[in-house]
């Protein structure tokens, strides 16, 4: 199941499913700095509703895209982090009077049927705490698990693309990351997670080889959540 490569390697393969794009990136974290090296990258446009709204409609084709990336770069056994975005997931920001809330106080639709989680984001101007809440149905989660199982992926996590953006944001600022600054940036960009991450910092934190220089310039919005997924897994490595 786990191959020799997983025994020694710290490489992470990030896969993001958005409404019309399937993106895979092979990232290698630097041991000395906060830099990440983009070893390989693949972006597939899903214009036939293969994963529309986050639902998997064509697992065979998606599996082929993923397996071809893994086979091309010989990444069998690498750690994989999966990011999902779409209407199938419930995502939102809620404000609670306390920064340490009781999970029972958090209102999530279909709470019993869904797998849900929350993370503290920033303090509000009114003294409330803003929390990011997301949930996914058990059936959809099973679809992604089956997809990963079929492709023999060494799956470490399934998270949301929004949370990957937050991790990329935190990584971009490094030690200078502050929750209050995150709050300001989110409010400035109308809580659009994909807009908060500064592109210039990401470019500095990502070491890209020549074949993928074009992607860094023109597909940064796709690369950023992939970097965020890799960053979120770095702690567990």
């Amino acid at each position, binding site marked *: 199941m786990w191959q020799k490569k*997983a*025994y020694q390697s710290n490489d992470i393969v990030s896969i993001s499913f958005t409404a019309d794009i399937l993106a895979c990136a092979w990232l290698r974290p630097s041991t000395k700095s906060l830099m990440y090296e983009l070893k390989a990258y693949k972006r597939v446009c899903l214009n036939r509703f293969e994963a529309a709204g986050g639902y998997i409609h064509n697992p065979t084709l998606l599996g082929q895209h993923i397996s071809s990336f893994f086979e091309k770069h010989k990444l069998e056994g690498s*750690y994989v982090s999966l990011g999902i975005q779409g209407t199938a997931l419930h995502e939102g920001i809620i404000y609670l009077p306390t920064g340490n809330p009781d999970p029972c106080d958090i209102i999530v639709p279909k709470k019993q049927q869904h797998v849900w989680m929350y993370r503290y984001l920033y303090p509000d101007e009114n003294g409330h705490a803003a929390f990011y809440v997301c949930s996914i149905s058990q059936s959809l989660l099973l679809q992604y698990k089956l997809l990963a199982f079929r492709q023999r992926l060494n*799956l470490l996590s*399934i998270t949301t693309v929004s949370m990957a953006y937050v991790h990329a944001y935190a990584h971009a600022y490094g030690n200078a990351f502050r929750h209050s600054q995150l709050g300001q940036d989110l409010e400035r960009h109308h809580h659009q997670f994909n807009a908060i991450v500064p592109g210039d910092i990401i470019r500095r934190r990502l070491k890209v080889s020549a074949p993928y220089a074009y992607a860094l310039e023109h597909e940064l919005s796709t690369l950023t959540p992939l970097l965020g997924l890799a960053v979120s897994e770095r702690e567990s490595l």
Partner: protein
Amino acid sequence: MKKINFIKTLSPKDQQAFLIWYELSVMLVCILLVGMVVCQIVQCYTFARVYFQYRRSVPIHLSQQELYTKAKEYEQKKHLVQKRLESLYLQKESFDSSTILSSCNTLFQGNRVLQSVLVHDAQVTCSLQCAESKDMIALINTLKAHELCKSVVVSHIKTVQASSKSKNVITPLLEATMVLTF
């Protein structure tokens, strides 16, 4: 910031620990197996050596045992033959036809005429003729008193006529058949 993860999986550290544990276990099992095989090979070699040594020594042992058995049999046969010989010697000593004949010859003198002697094993059947009955009785008593003779049985007595060619005179004679056991 803590990550959000919808699934519970083995962390990379756990995977690495599991892999190390697995590889170590496999290695230890292999070492154990190799050690066991080596020990078994040594034991098998010892067994084979002893077995072939035993196989080589078995024919010698068997031949020796066979010789011993044959020797014992021969000894038994020799013993039996010796016993037989002894008994035969004893028999020869106790029963000698020439002695008997010579004794008979000495016994049947004078008026006693020995007609026939039939020697069979330890029994002698003889027929004789006497002129008078007292001679016959004396002979029987003499025979009974003889050291070699165990029993004297007179099977029958009859009177016969004996004629003399020179004088043309017919004289009556007693003819007795006796069975003597020696």
